[in-house]
Structures are given as structure tokens and as C-alpha cells.
């Protein structure tokens, strides 16, 4: 705990120091943050592997509950490992920033503060500490989002983010209020000892879903996320998308699995249904979007949806006392948290590298980067493969566990869940397929083909520390895929505290690296053997192809149907690649319309092809309430211009109504 405290203190001191610094010395925050992340990560790992817990109490905070409670138990330690891994990678990337150009006093002082706030959320052991650090995290990340405040788009993103964060925190205040009860027992120990009444518990669950869902990007509270995450500097985007959404998931797990006490089975329905909708809708947005960083942010929405489905399943299984199945679902959720933090950080850092090298985020301005940025291209490819859940990378392990738990859902006694599980499974399968399509598109358009702009043609590889940051994460994606079973074994203490059991047959497989969800007969995944098979099969194919074909490699012009046109615009674009999917799903999900304006014969104007998409969630849940509030406030504005007599009438009416209520009620 002292080490954690010292590291947190170092982060805060670095933030405070950096606030007073200008120029190149600002770069000092990144080494400090990296060291602090390593220290905290090691402490977290120690607690996670050895079990037990660390606790401390600071003499600040609410006096009625005895100060500011801090505690590090296996659950927060696991999330601490996730967070500090992300912070370490982002700090490494930050060390590679151009000291002369990239450092600004608007970003660097807030970076360690943001990292410290996220760690503090995990350590909080009373509602006051939790909410305080949660708000600190929100505000720090908001300030990072509006760091480039000169762009109107960023200001708008920051405003929306601030509104959504305020709504989320308000919901969490209600959640903790419900948990603490009228006696005001805000310490988590007190809350655990007194389970709230069923009706209150439902309200708490709803509030937690709103509060944590808005931070994590659960549909329909996701609207801010694809605007705000890309607006921040890229290594901060990686932190927000890869790590901060995990803090939101931590909050949900802490409240529903730890603090709320025993669950009813139907509590699981909202997270499962919303999660499945989020997964599909997030990717549909991602497939149609043309901004590299926004695509990644939408993909984060999808992954948060997957995690919420897994958490919902775990909740349902636990309510039915099927602890083994609950452990599988929970392991899927936690492993996906870890994996997503790795590959999403990797992809955002890769997008940052592309942005740095070309100055562009729009996919239609990129292309051919594999030649100019070979290392970044390889790392990005690994990340894209991992997020598309291809074996033997890490994304596959967690999604495999998730599908295992979906397949076990028919064993539950509730008919609703029995019927829902095939639908959920189908939606998740659709999401998995869309994810693959989405990342084929992103990688193909950005890195393959010919450059679509001068900037892309003159791109350059990024600095060594940034390559190390991406390479480390790519290595983790591979290792996490090969040794997923070992990681799941390491999760056993967390699973036991949350759902009362670990994976039933963990560690009994034919090799030490076999991951067994239920039993070896029907659900076993042996990553190294699969990897070996993939390696042998591809090497054999390579060798055979090379043997059978002509030895010498020749370079020639691409076949262009006899019309040699050197323009890069003749290639597939991001929009044209998405067109088949847009025709299939876009009409339903976004009422997509394609219009072609063809000039009459003889006119030399070019023909115009345009696509319109309508975001129904945005128009119905954001624009319409916004207008309603505006209209209502305009109406109420008239109240400020009444005559004296009318104000007297209002007061009199209020008095008489209150007296009448008092008469009736007493």
C-alpha cells in the first residue's frame, strides 16, 4: 500500500510540477508516469497472485465514516494491472513525442493526473472516495479532450462529454445513496454487510448501469465516446479507450457483484440485451465511419458491449447458483477487459503513429503505409487480427470463453434466458463477423494499396520509443493468445470472490496451456497447438507455392483492365469497401440512402454520388430531449417577467396547496 501511495504521490507531484513547467522539460512526466505505472502494476500483480488485500485509511473525506478508505483486493488489483499496463504503454509512447513540437502545458500536466485518478478509483473503499476519484478522472480526461480547443469539433465533443459525465456521476451518486441506505453507511464494508431491499436494489442496478454505462459507452449512452476519444492526443485516446472504459466496467462489477448482494436472475437482462445491441450497433457505426480514430472508438463501444453481455451472463448464472458457468462468463469478461486494453491501446497508438506521420485521420487520405511505416504496419496488423478474434491471438481466447458461456445459457431454468441466448449468440456472432470486416477495411485502406494523398506518400516511421510501446503491446497480444489459460488461472482469486468458484476443470488439460471452459470433452482450446498448426500449415503452403511457382520475383504494373490510370482515386475507398454492408444493414439501422446526381448529356459537370445516414439514437435520445429542454426553459423564462400581483398569486397558491397537503396528510 505504501508503494502504491508513493507511486500515486509521484504521479500527482509530476502533474503539479508539470503544471508549472513550460517547454521541453514537460517531457519529464512520461518517465515518471512509466516508473509509477511499473511500481503500481507490480504491487497489483503481487496482490492478484498472492491473494489477500491491502488497506489504508486517510484522515480526509467524510468524518462520519471515519475518513478516506482505500483497499486493494484481487478485483481492484486485476483492474490495476490492466490500467497500469495501458499507462505504461502510453507513457512509453509519450517519451517518443517530439520534444520541440508535441509538448504542450495543456496535455502533459494532466496525463499523470488522469493516470493517478484512474488508479484511485480502483483503490477507493467508500462511496465518497469512489465518487471523488471518479469525478477527478472524468474532469482530467475532459480537460485532455479539449486540449486542442481551437477546433470547433473538439469543443463540441468536450461539451457533450462533460454533460454525459455529469449525468453518469449523478446516476452513481443515486446508486451509492441507495446502497448506503438512510443510515448513511457509505463505507463499502458497511454496504456489504447490509444488502438493500429488492426494490432499492433494482434502482441501484439501473443507476449503476446508467452511471458506468455512460462512461463505458453502452448504447444508448455512447454518443460522446466516438467524438471525445479521438479528440484527445493519441496516447491519451489509447488511455481513454483502452483503459478508462475498463474503470467503468470495474465500477459496474464492484457495485453489482460485490456491493449489491445476491441477485435476481432478471437483473441480468438489461446488461445482456443492451450489451448485445451495443456490440452490433457499435460495429455498424464503425464499419461506415471514415475517420481512423473514430472507427477505433466505435469498436471500443462494441467491445464494451461484449463485456457487458458476459457480465450479464455471469450475473444470471450466479443467481441460479450455476457457479461454474458464472465463472466461465466472468472469466470471459475479465479476460476481454485485459485483452481489449492491450489491442485497443495498440491500435490507438498505431493510429497516433499514422496521424503523426501523415497528419491525417481520414481513411480516404491514407493508403500504402505498409511501405513507408513497415514496423507500425506489422504492429497494427497484429492488433487488428487480435481485435478481430482470430486464433492464436488473445482476442480469440476471451471471445471463445464468451461464446462458451452463451452456449451454456440454455441450461438455466428461466425460459426467457433460454430463448434469449440463441438470439444473443447470433448477435455476438454478427458482431464478430462485422469486426473482422471492419478491420480488414481499416487495414486494407490505410496500409495497403497506393497512397491516396501526398501526406501518405511521404509518411515516415515513428520514433523508437513509440515503436517499443506498440511492439510491446503486440507481443502481449501474441503471448496473451498463447498463454490465455495461464492468465485465467491467475484470475482464480478474483473469480472466487465474485462468483464463488473458479473455472471447474482449469489446469487438467493434456498440456499446461489447455484452456478448458467446462470439461475437456466438449470445450477445450489449446492455443499453442493451434498456433503450431497455423504455423505449419502456412509455412507448408508458402514452401509449396514457392516450389511450384517461378523462383524469381518480378515487379510489374497492376492489371487495370487496359486503362492505365495512375490516379490513386481508382482504388477502393473506405466508403466503397463498406458499400455492400451499407446496403445490407445500413438501410435498416441508419435508413441509409444513396443518391446519384447525373448531369444531363452534354453537361461537363461530374456526376455526384452521395450517401446519407441517419443516427436514430442520436436524433431520438439526444436531439429531441435537448429541444424539449430548450422549449421548456423558454416557456419558464416568462416566469421572470410577471407582475407583482402574479408573483403574489404564485406564492399564495403555493402556501394554500402546502396547507391543503398538510391538512390531508396529517
Amino acid at each position: 500500500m505504501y508503494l502504491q501511495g508513493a507511486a500515486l504521490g509521484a504521479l500527482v507531484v509530476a502533474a503539479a510540477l508539470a503544471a508549472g513547467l513550460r517547454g521541453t522539460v514537460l517531457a519529464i512526466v512520461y518517465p515518471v508516469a512509466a516508473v509509477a505505472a511499473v511500481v503500481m502494476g507490480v504491487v497489483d500483480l503481487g496482490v492478484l497472485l498472492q491473494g489477500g488485500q491491502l488497506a489504508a485509511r486517510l484522515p480526509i473525506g467524510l468524518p462520519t465514516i471515519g475518513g478516506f478508505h482505500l483497499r486493494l483486493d484481487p478485483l481492484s488489483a486485476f483492474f490495476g494491472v490492466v490500467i497500469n499496463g495501458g499507462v505504461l504503454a502510453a507513457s512509453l509512447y509519450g517519451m517518443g513525442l517530439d520534444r520541440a513540437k508535441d509538448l504542450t502545458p495543456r496535455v502533459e500536466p494532466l496525463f499523470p493526473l488522469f493516470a493517478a485518478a484512474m488508479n484511485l478509483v480502483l483503490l477507493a473503499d467508500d462511496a465518497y472516495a469512489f465518487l471523488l476519484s471518479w469525478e477527478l478522472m472524468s474532469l482530467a480526461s475532459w480537460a485532455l479532450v479539449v486540449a486542442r480547443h481551437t477546433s470547433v469539433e473538439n469543443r463540441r465533443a468536450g461539451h457533450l462529454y462533460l454533460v454525459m459525465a455529469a449525468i453518469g456521476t449523478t446516476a452513481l451518486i443515486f446508486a451509492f445513496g441507495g446502497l448506503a441506505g438512510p443510515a448513511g453507511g457509505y463505507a463499502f464494508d458497511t454496504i456489504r454487510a447490509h444488502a438493500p431491499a429488492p426494490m432499492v436494489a433494482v434502482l441501484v442496478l439501473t443507476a449503476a448501469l446508467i452511471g458506468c454505462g455512460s462512461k463505458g459507452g453502452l448504447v444508448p449512452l455512447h454518443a460522446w465516446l466516438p467524438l471525445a476519444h479521438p479528440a484527445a492526443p493519441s496516447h491519451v485516446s489509447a488511455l481513454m479507450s483502452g483503459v478508462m472504459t475498463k474503470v467503468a466496467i470495474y465500477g459496474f462489477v464492484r457495485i453489482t457483484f460485490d456491493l449489491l448482494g445476491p441477485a435476481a436472475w432478471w437483473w441480468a437482462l438489461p446488461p445482456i440485451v443492451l450489451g448485445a445491441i451495443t456490440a452490433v450497433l457499435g460495429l455498424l457505426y464503425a464499419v461506415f465511419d471514415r475517420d481512423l480514430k473514430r472507427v477505433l472508438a466505435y469498436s471500443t463501444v462494441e467491445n464494451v458491449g461484449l463485456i457487458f453481455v458476459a457480465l450479464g451472463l455471469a450475473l444470471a448464472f450466479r443467481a441460479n447458483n450455476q457457479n461454474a458457468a458464472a465463472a466461465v462468463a466472468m472469466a470471459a469478461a475479465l479476460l476481454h477487459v485485459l485483452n481489449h486494453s492491450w489491442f485497443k491501446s495498440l491500435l490507438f497508438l498505431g493510429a497516433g503513429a499514422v496521424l503523426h506521420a501523415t497528419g491525417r485521420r481520414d481513411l480516404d487520405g491514407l493508403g500504402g503505409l505498409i511501405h513507408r511505416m513497415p514496423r507500425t504496419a506489422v504492429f497494427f496488423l497484429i492488433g487488428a487480427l487480435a481485435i478481430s478474434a482470430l486464433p492464436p491471438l488473445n482476442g480469440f481466447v476471451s471471445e471463445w470463453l464468451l461464446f462458451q458461456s452463451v452456449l451454456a445459457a440454455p441450461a438455466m431454468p428461466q425460459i426467457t434466458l433460454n430463448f434469449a441466448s440463441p438470439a444473443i449468440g447470433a448477435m455476438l456472432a454478427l458482431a464478430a463477423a462485422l469486426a473482422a470486416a471492419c478491420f480488414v477495411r481499416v487495414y486494407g485502406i490505410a496500409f495497403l494499396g497506393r497512397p491516396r494523398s501526398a501526406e501518405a506518400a511521404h509518411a515516415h516511421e515513428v520514433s523508437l520509443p513509440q515503436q517499443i510501446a506498440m511492439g510491446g503491446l503486440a507481443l502481449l497480444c501474441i503471448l496473451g493468445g498463447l498463454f490465455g489459460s495461464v492468465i485465467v488461472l491467475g484470475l482464480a482469486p478474483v473469480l472466487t470472490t465474485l462468483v464463488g468458484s473458479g473455472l471447474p476443470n482449469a489446469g487438467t488439460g493434456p498440456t499446461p496451456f489447455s484452456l478448458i471452459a467446462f470439461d475437456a470433452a466438449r470445450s477445450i482450446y489449446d492455443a499453442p497447438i493451434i498456433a503450431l498448426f497455423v504455423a505449419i500449415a502456412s509455412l507448408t503452403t508458402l514452401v509449396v507455392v514457392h516450389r511450384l511457382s517461378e523462383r524469381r520475383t518480378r515487379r510489374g504494373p497492376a492489371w487495370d483492365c487496359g486503362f492505365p490510370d495512375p490516379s490513386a482515386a481508382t482504388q477502393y475507398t473506405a466508403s466503397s469497401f463498406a458499400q455492400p454492408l451499407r446496403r445490407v444493414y445500413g438501410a435498416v439501422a441508419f435508413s441509409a440512402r444513396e443518391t446519384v446526381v447525373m448531369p444531363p448529356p452534354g453537361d461537363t459537370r461530374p456526376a455526384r454520388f452521395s450517401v446519407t445516414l441517419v443516427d436514430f439514437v442520436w436524433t431520438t435520445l439526444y436531439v429531441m430531449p435537448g429541444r424539449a429542454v430548450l422549449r421548456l426553459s423558454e416557456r419558464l423564462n416568462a416566469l421572470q417577467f410577471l407582475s407583482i400581483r402574479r408573483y403574489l398569486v404564485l406564492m399564495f397558491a403555493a402556501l394554500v396547496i402546502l396547507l391543503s397537503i398538510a391538512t390531508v396528510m396529517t
Partner: protein
Amino acid sequence: MNEVYDISHLLAGVMLVTSFALLYQGRIASVVNTFAAQSITLSLAVAWAAWSQDRPDLFITATIAFTLKGVIIPIALHRTVARLGIHHEVEKVVGVGIALMVGLALTALAQALLLKVAHSPENYYAGEQLALALAIILLGFLMMILRRNAVTQVVGFMSMENGLILAATGARGMPLVVEVSVAFSVLIALFVFAVFVFRIRERFDTIDVGALDRMRGDRR
């Protein structure tokens, strides 16, 4: 013991009747006269309370009420009315019938509330006194709302204050300091109102408070 309460209830009841009369009066001069009558009744009620409860300090309250609100303020108001030359009808927002019906409903509300709150036998008489006081306060408020003329609004305000004093004498232990300060605040309020009334008059040639709204450009 019962006669004590009977007489104090009688006086409070008379005050309530004058409150209704205030709502009913059509001319400003008679409104002021009715208010004077109510204030004198108040001073009698307070004096009776002082004698029956053996609280001599209440005699001072009674004296203040009599001289200030029974004599000085009505004379001042009469002179104001004479100087402004507004002996004509009081401008009403709603008709007398509706005003009286609403007043009746408010009185019923006050009774119902106080009977429920003070339902124990030992509180019964004090509760009845409070109910009458509350009804007078509500009727004073109603009068402020239902009259457009500034002078009648002043009278409504004073009538509310009469109700407050009545309630205060019913409740035990209200110290004299409070009453004195209440009386002085009313006096100051009267000055403020008077200045206000003359100002409106100077500027708009009327003391209909609606003129203020028209000046601000509001629609009615």
C-alpha cells in the same frame, strides 16, 4: 375557564368577520374604516388575553396595536386617499361573490388544518384561536391579490399582520421584543408603501399597480 376562551374567540371571530368585510367593501374610505375596526378589535383581544392570562406585557402590545393601527395608520391612509383624490370604487380583479366564496374556502381550510394539528383536548382552545388567526392571515393575503389599488394592497398587508399578532398572543411565550420589532417593521413598511404610492401617482397619474406592468411593456 371557558368564559375566558369564549370571549377571546368572540373577539377573534369579530376580526374574521371584519376580514370578510374588507373583501366586501366597495369604497376605499370604508376599507380603511373597516381596517381600523379590525385593529381596534385586535387590541381588545390582546388586552383580554393580557388580563385573562395575567401577562401584563401584552397590555403594551394592545396599546401599540390600538394607537398605531387603530388610529394613526387609518388617519394617515385617509389623508393619503384625500390627497390623492381616490374616493371612487376599489378596482377588483374578481367579483365580490367569488372573493367571498374563496375566502370561505380558505377559512374552512384553516379550520380543518388546525383541528387536525391541534387535536388533543388541552390544545383545543389554543388551536381554535390559531385557526381564526390563520384564516385572517390568508384573507389578508387574498385581499392583496384580488385588489389592484396600491392603498388596498397596503391594507391587505396590515390585515395579515393583524392576524400574525393574534396568533402570537395565542401562542405562549412570545417575547415583547418580537412584537415591538414586528410593529416597527409594519410602520416602516407603511412608509415604504406610502412613498411607493406617491411615486406611482407622480409618474403615472394613477395608483393602479397595473400601470407598472404597462410601463415595463408586459401584456396582461
